[in-house]
């Protein structure tokens, strides 16, 4: 067993375990903190896939900004413990069956994939995949999608401000 394989298996166990802990913990703050663990594990997996820039973005944007937003809203609304007995007990069973069917389908597809997908991948050229080359690609070849994404972010920002504005100020 190589070192890479051992790291992958450890990270996979951490990620799946923390995501299941995120589901079963009744306190929303604990759920958010478990999700942070999952995001960090996935960031290290990105490093294994030699996508260092994406890994750093994952830590800064996801584990940093987005999870702080989650924790802020949870604590602002004081809704840590709203999970009580559901009025629809069949919902839990239906969710369990549906996700079980989904993962069986995924496993079948992943295992019977045609060809030798498990192959080696060569080392990347030095500097390839770094922030500089990604930036050049974003601003040259993918300029239009990039600008559309920035418009989307602007719309989301305006929408969030409008939605959370006090009623009396209208």
């Amino acid at each position, binding site marked *: 067993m190589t070192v*890479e*394989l051992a790291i*992958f298996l450890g990270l996979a166990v951490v*990620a*799946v375990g923390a*995501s299941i802990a*995120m*589901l079963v913990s009744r306190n*929303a703050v604990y*759920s*958010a903190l478990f*999700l942070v663990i*999952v995001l960090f594990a*996935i960031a290290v*997996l990105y490093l294994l*896939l030699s*996508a260092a820039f*994406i890994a750093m973005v*994952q830590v800064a*944007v*996801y584990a940093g*900004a*987005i999870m702080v937003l*989650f924790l802020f*809203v949870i604590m*602002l*609304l004081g*809704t840590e413990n709203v999970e009580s007995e559901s009025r*629809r007990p069949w*919902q839990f069973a*239906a*969710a*369990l069956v*549906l*996700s*079980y069917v*989904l993962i069986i389908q*995924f*496993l079948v597809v*992943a295992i019977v*994939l045609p060809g030798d*997908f*498990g*192959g080696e*991948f*060569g080392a990347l050229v030095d500097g*390839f*995949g770094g922030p500089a080359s*990604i930036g050049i*690609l974003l601003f040259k070849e993918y300029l239009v*999608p990039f600008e559309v*994404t920035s418009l*989307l*972010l602007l719309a*989301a*920002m305006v929408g*969030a*401000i409008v*939605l*959370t504005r006090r009623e009396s100020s209208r």
Partner: protein
Amino acid sequence: MVPLSWYLILAAALFAVGIFGVLARRNAIAILMGIELMLNAVNLNLLAFWRYLWSDNLTGVVFVIMVLAVAAAEVAVGLALIISIYRRRSTVVAEEIDLLKW
């Protein structure tokens, strides 16, 4: 070397856990967390496919950056909606927000 299918199986497991959270949790904030988990599983798939099959160009990485931006926008609007709903109805339990139901 880790086979590609292992990455796919891990992403599938994370996606299934996320969709279970979306379907089974009652707290609207926890439902958003499940959506985040599903988006991360998709990102993991994208990067694994990029690295194993198309690592001669950076298209996969650009794709993941777009997904990250869309996820950030989605969380901002979703949490703003939850705050707005809480102001009006004093609840974030998904099945009590039934104003639009017949």
